[in-house]
């Protein structure tokens, strides 16, 4: 159970940002590896991309885009907080960041499924 003192939006935003950042950092090498295949074995890359047509994989991709979007908007939120004089609007900022991330990821998902 989450300790009671963490029960507020800013902490949630922090946790989300950290987990998404970590997720991205762990996923990126894999992503790079797949792309790197293009150099010598383009057919393998194709294999991967075909695999990518599978709905489950699409969902996973959606997850990754979501992570990236969440992390980016969360990060922009932080940058705004630190470098602009944003104060009372912090909570709004979090909401905006998360919904923007969500919208972007959904867009991606919709496009992916509407082949």
């Amino acid at each position: 159970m989450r300790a009671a003192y963490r029960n507020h939006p800013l902490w949630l935003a922090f946790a989300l940002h950290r987990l998404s950042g970590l997720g991205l950092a762990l996923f990126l090498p894999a992503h790079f590896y797949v792309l790197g295949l293009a150099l010598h074995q383009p057919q393998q890359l194709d294999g991967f991309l075909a695999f990518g047509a599978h709905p489950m994989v699409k969902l996973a991709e959606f997850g990754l885009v979501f992570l990236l979007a969440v992390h980016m908007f969360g990060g922009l939120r932080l940058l705004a907080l630190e470098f602009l004089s944003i104060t009372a609007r912090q909570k709004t900022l979090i909401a905006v960041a998360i919904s923007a991330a969500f919208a972007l990821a959904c867009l991606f998902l919709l496009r992916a499924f509407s082949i």
Partner: protein
Amino acid sequence: MLNLRLYLLQRITAMIMAPLVLGHLAVMVYAIQGGLSADDILSRTQGSLAWAVFYGLFVLAVSVHGAIGLRVIVHEWTGLRGAALGFLTWGSFAMLAIMGGRAVMAVTLA
């Protein structure tokens, strides 16, 4: 464990990446429309200096940014510090930069 330099590097790379990520995502949204194939990707990117610069910068920024990020997380979660922490930071930077560089080369070199 963040001093001014690391902090600034992380923030600056974040600011660099923001438009790049948006661009990248836009391309992806556009690209996946017709289903992805290696050829699709490569035909668009190979031989394009602009894409090489775009993704090159992206990789560099993300390597710095991610390495610092991992450094913070590892320090806070495991208490690692000193030379070992430095090693980890540089190591993750190198891994991201090398693998990312290879990927950029793969998709942009003719």
